[in-house]
């Protein structure tokens, strides 16, 4: 993941713009990525300090004659390559314990004898531990990040990294966003289902609404093919769905802004996988945090799978644990894992995580686990209920959001369950029975 300081963005009036992603730039990124990845592969087995030195050397050789923008581009590609380097696990506890023991003995010896006999001290400790002084020396700072050894290089192929570079830069811009509005259009149900599941998995709690009118430009809605982008056939147009997705930006939150920003950035590749997409974000950019508008869009931009666009996400851990526990218990309810999307025209869309169906009468209650970033998003769900959501639904929200179950006390067919640490089978069951009647 890139950071904001590695992005070559320019201000134009009230807008923040990325450099045009033309063939020349993509080629430059691919050259940098290929050279750095190859050099990293040569360094397998060496320490992080050595690898860093080697990568710096390679980047410097590639940068010669370049302007400041080139240096930033090289640094950005270097970051993406470094993200794919895997180092051995540190043995912090053993090294830390050794230092404590050795340094305390050294201080005591110096105080007692007036000077330190280093070799004698190391020899004595090595003897006690059944090892050699050299082995102790090697273990002394083995937990330093710089001493860890490179075990593998898992970097995307240069061409793939280059084709997803613009998305990587946009991800870094979104780390500075206050609000994001995305519009996506796709004819393939599996694409938007994947998108919604990704947003759910990342716990972003978006406000989603289905747009009834197609975009002006959707007549030219392209269809992705293995060879590129082609026009959509007229008969496919009938199946086009278009959604508007509003999300809070990290800078609008009181806490957890860093982690939320990362989650938000991970959603971008899933958005960019739609046939036609655009995002508009209000960002605060630069040291003076100037408010700017960032726009981006495209048609089915292929994005690096490693950053979250590819395989379908499952549930978040807390939900998977809960479902397993619920299905083990004798409840008289069955769990549907992929329930329908609930669409309330004019009010918005609700994407439940589950539906519960009572075995004896088929009564159905939807269930949505709300994220833990923003209280505002909870209130938006409540607005949806008050606008007349016809299906019965149970929302679950973490206590850390400081909301009370009483918020939906007067609602027909909807309830709010506030949990403290984990979702409990019994309280959920009680809510389900009450809602199903």
């Amino acid at each position: 993941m890139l950071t904001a300081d590695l992005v070559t963005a320019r201000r134009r009036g009230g807008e923040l713009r990325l450099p045009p992603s033309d063939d020349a730039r993509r080629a430059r990124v691919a050259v940098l990525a290929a050279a750095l990845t190859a050099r990293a592969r040569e360094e397998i087995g060496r320490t992080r300090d050595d690898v860093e030195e080697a990568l710096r050397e390679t980047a410097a050789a590639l940068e010669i004659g370049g302007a400041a923008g080139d240096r930033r581009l090289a640094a950005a590609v270097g970051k993406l390559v470094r993200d794919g380097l895997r180092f051995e696990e540190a043995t912090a506890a053993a090294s830390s314990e050794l230092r404590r023991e050795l340094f305390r003995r050294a201080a005591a010896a110096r105080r007692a004898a007036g000077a330190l006999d280093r070799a004698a001290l190391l020899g004595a400790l090595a003897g006690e531990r059944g090892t050699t002084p050299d082995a102790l020396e090697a273990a002394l700072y083995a937990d330093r990040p710089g001493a860890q050894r490179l075990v593998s290089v898992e970097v995307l192929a240069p061409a793939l990294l280059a084709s997803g570079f613009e998305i990587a830069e946009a991800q870094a811009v979104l780390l500075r966003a206050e609000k994001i509005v995305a519009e996506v259009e796709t004819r393939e149900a599996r694409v938007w289902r994947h998108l919604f599941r990704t947003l759910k998995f990342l716990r972003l709690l978006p406000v989603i609404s289905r747009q009834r009118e197609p975009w002006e430009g959707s007549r030219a809605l392209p269809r992705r093919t293995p060879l590129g982008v082609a026009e959509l056939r007229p008969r496919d147009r009938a199946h086009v769905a278009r959604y508007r997705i509003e999300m809070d930006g990290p800078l609008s939150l009181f806490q957890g802004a860093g982690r939320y920003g990362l989650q938000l950035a991970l959603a971008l590749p899933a958005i960019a996988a739609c046939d036609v997409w655009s995002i508009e974000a209000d960002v605060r950019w630069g040291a003076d945090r100037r408010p700017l508008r960032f726009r981006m869009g495209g048609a089915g931009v292929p994005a690096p799978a490693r950053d979250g666009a590819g395989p379908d996400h499952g549930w978040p851990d807390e939900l998977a644990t809960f479902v397993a526990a619920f299905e083990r218990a004798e409840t008289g309810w069955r769990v549907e894992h992929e329930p329908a999307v609930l669409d309330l025209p004019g009010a918005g869309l609700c994407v439940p995580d589950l539906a519960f169906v009572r075995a004896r009468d088929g009564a159905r209650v939807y269930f949505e686990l709300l994220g833990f970033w923003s209280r505002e998003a909870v209130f938006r769900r409540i607005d949806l209920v008050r606008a007349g959501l016809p299906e019965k639904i149970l929302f679950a929200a973490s206590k850390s959001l400081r909301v009370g179950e009483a918020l939906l006390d007067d609602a027909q067919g909807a309830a709010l369950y506030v949990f403290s640490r984990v979702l409990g089978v019994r309280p959920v069951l009680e809510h389900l029975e009450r809602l199903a009647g």
Partner: protein
Amino acid sequence: MHRSSRPYQDEALAAWRGARGRGVVVLPTGAGKTHVACLAIDDRRRSTLVLAPTLDLVRQWYDVLRATFGVPVGVIGGGDYGVEALTVSTYDSAYLHMEHLGDRFGLLVFDECHHLPGPAYALAARAAVAPFRLGLTATPERADGRHADYDALCGPIVYRKDIVDLSGGYLAPYETVRLTVELGPEDRRAHDEARGVYRDFVARNGIRMSSPSGWSDFIIRASRSDDGRRAMAAYQRQREIAFAAPAKLEYVGLLLDRHRDDRLLLFTQDNATAYALSRRFLIPIITHETRVRERSEILAGLAEGSYGAVVTSKVLNEGVDIPDANVAVVVSGSASVREHVQRLGRILRARAGKHALLYELVTANTAETFTSARRRDHSAYR
């Protein structure tokens, strides 16, 4: 508030009050700046936000405010977001959240306020509406001249006492010793050769290193050719030789033996030298890589005496309270007056019978001679 104040702390409060509750108080490390802030908070009785540059300092402020006022204290930063009438925050977190916090406090306390004139932190100060503001620092002057911004951000300097004013009374008496070491013949040859390559490049490219843009000009030119890269490597090589001259390291060994019953802090300019010293003399090291738990254990060990010395590069330069340390050895450092004064400040907290001693090791006939002269340009070293 039950603790009695020292006369200069009362004077500082009176001066700040006289300036309508806006201004900077300059006191040396160990002179009790925190207590002045507590007096100011008690005096104004307004909701207060204290801003500090590091999480270590946030923790120290939290403890002091809880103990002094006996009320809940909010913390913002390091994963916490709790706002109370008395709240402590890092500058970074306050900058991120000032839009939500700016109208909630009547008094802002800027600890180590020499950080305040940076563009991001200054924005946080400007976004706040607090009518009362107190800046605290031992070293108000900034190399970039932006200390002139104090007036607008938190008020002018309203009270100042330097180390020489308080030494021997409220601060430990101290002595500074500058030790010059010589390079061996091989190192001298390597140093002069590397310096020659660097100086030649600078001269050929017409770069004036004494001008404000000299350093950035050098970096830009150096990145554009093989010659430039060689010059940059040579520049770094001659610095490394000067910073970690073998004779310096020998001297560190002598000082560790001579002061074996004291508590020593060894400062270096770079981590590589700090690790070399730690490994060679088997003394604990604190760098930015040191985990919090080990760092606490090292500082506690130094206080109780199970360690006699700790080596560090820059992370202990500022703020952290190490009252038991009485000897500092500056093995290498930058030309910054502020850094050098802050390093001296680490050993000046008064203790009965304490006499502090700062050694500065300088390699003769290298750029370090000039660097040393620049950083000693302060009353504490005259």
